[in-house]
């Protein structure tokens, strides 16, 4: 299968290792991977800020960019939810409605794609660490992914998966919410990060790099030993370098 990558803008600029790990895992599974370089940002910041006209322009650009792609796979529950759930809403009653629906049907979050579409749970990764999983709200509540990432993690050799109290609590990121209402956002990450730190895990793993930016940023500032790691990075651990 030829997979078109959907790399969130801040993964591109600030966490490229997540994109590289995504490529590595998808290739390991025997698929062709392409990256359409016209892509930048899905427009969610504008959508969430009520700037729907602006966001609509981004959505229409994305439809064009991914036109003809067999499947689109992205390592972010939040950005994938933007395409899968919010583009159709944003573009309903426009000439783009049908295409938005159609793109939504062939766009998948990374763990969703591997488990639900490919039917694979064991990539062959090895990581001798204790990890806990953070459910990003968009992955859990918009895309209804809960078991899929856990299935993938359980299959990693040497990995011990433990659950966190507050595993379903929001980390407090919320895009621009984190900087428009920083005091509330911080209070939320204190609750989340505190619970994560108490698990004694080596890594907090998530399918949402934006949550990891928030959680990791707070954990580092507070000097907590637990580190953030994207699920694609976990699944790329121990795979041969050139697949």
């Amino acid at each position: 299968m030829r997979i078109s990558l959907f790399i969130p803008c801040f993964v591109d600029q600030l966490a490229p290792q997540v994109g590289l790990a995504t490529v590595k895992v998808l290739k390991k599974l025997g698929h062709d991977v392409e990256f359409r370089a016209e892509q930048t940002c899905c427009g969610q910041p504008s959508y969430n800020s009520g700037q729907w006209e602006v966001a609509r322009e981004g959505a229409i650009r994305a439809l064009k960019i991914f036109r003809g792609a067999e499947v689109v796979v992205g390592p972010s529950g939040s950005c994938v939810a933007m395409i899968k759930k919010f583009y159709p809403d944003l573009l309903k009653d426009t000439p783009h409605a049908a295409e938005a629906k159609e793109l939504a049907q062939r766009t998948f979050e990374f763990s969703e794609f591997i488990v639900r579409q490919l039917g694979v749970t064991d990539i062959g990764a090895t990581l001798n660490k204790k990890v806990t999983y953070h459910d990003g709200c968009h992955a859990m509540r918009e895309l209804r992914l809960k078991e899929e990432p856990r299935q993938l993690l359980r299959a990693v050799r040497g990995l011990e998966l433990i659950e966190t109290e507050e595993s379903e609590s929001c980390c407090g990121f919320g895009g621009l919410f984190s900087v428009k209402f920083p005091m509330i956002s911080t209070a939320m990450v204190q609750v989340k990060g505190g619970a994560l730190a108490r698990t004694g895990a080596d890594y907090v793993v998530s399918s949402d790099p934006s949550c990891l930016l928030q959680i990791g940023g707070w954990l580092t500032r507070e000097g907590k030993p637990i580190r953030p790691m994207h699920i694609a990075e976990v699944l790329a651990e121990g795979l041969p370098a050139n697949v």
Partner: protein
Amino acid sequence: MSNAKDIFLKEATTAAADGPQRIFINKALGGYYANRDIQKARFRDWERARDAASLAKWEAVNDLANTLEAFVAKFESNGGKVHWARNAAEAREIILQLIAAANAKAVVKSKCMTTEEIHLNDALEKAGYSVVESDLGEFIQQLRGEAPYHFVFPCMHVKREEISALFTKHLGTAATNSPEELTMIARRHLRQLYVDADVGITGANFLVAETGQISITENEGNARLTAALPRIHIALSGIEKVVKKLDDLSVLLPMLATAGAGQPMTCYNTLYSGPRKPGECDGPEEFHLVLLDNARTQLLADPEQRDALHCIRCGACLNVCPIFKNIGGLAYGTTYQGPIGSVITPHLRGLKQWNHLSGASSLCGACTDACPVRIDLHHHLLHNRRNANQTSPTWFDRLFHRGFNFVISRPRLFAFGGRVFRFTLPVLKKIPLPYLSAWLKTRDLPPAPAQSFRQQWKDSSHG
């Protein structure tokens, strides 16, 4: 500070910084989560029961005029009197006139958020009546001179020591740390007040069109007493509380109890269909119902958010909301706190003044999953943000998003901008900048990588 947003920001900042209080609230809700899950498990299919509850409310709300007229006809044929109020002032006026006409002096009230919405107590006190809140939580808040913190658990933020001191001050009782003893102090104090009151004021959880009954849900028995002992019973209800059939309540009552308080059924669910009837040994001589619009019809006129009128005020969305749990209920400055409050307050009191509540959410969606009548709460927060942007855009937001869009619609400019950002980040971190400084106050940013993903992709064999 005059505007609602500034007050909110100030109050939320203070509350979010109060760690011990936040832990106290979280602990208080711990028992609720456990009980709610036990009761939810007793439903044979909770998710489909939510569908049914949602449908029952949809049918009534989307046929509201006919349903209300049917209800009113039945209610009046049962011997009650209906009064219509377009707004809060009219509702207050009607209630004051009823009390004056009855030559009443003392009023006892059971818990009713709609009376909070119309600021009834202030009006009654100004008119010289003694008003006592009989729900324990409301009674405590009344003594504290504070609005309810949570529309189901009004004083959940108050510690027992504070309640003890409050009772000592106002009732002259000895100090105690026992919730049981504190409850008994209130019980003893309020008993005679029920007996002496001329007028009892209650709310209504449901109005049943089929039978003309009003349904009141409560745990303490104070509403039962309020509707039994005084000569006159006045109920105040929003027009959206109506349901079509009596047996709709066979779905709604257990769901209200489970979602709202983790109970199989609230302790007292009582249906009233008129004043004392011939052959009945007690009950009020008169039964009045005030039906309040107060901008509900404006919300009704928005089909996208009309389902917000399905709300049965269970409070489940507050109980799971990380915003509510971290800033508490008072910071909102509204009658209805939490997600449902953030959704409806802009409709009831003005979008321009109250849209900040819709912004103050990470859109996590825990509220929507918790809502027993499936109100699309967190998406409505997005709808409010969009509507506010259309009707009263701010120049900063406009500029920011237009500028952002200018960059992201040009992949090369985006790549260049990203590179500049990464290289200058160490410097940017040191200068005050909107958004970035707010982030860095409490959180780090990982060191910027030398190369973006797109560069590495291009440079590798892929490109």
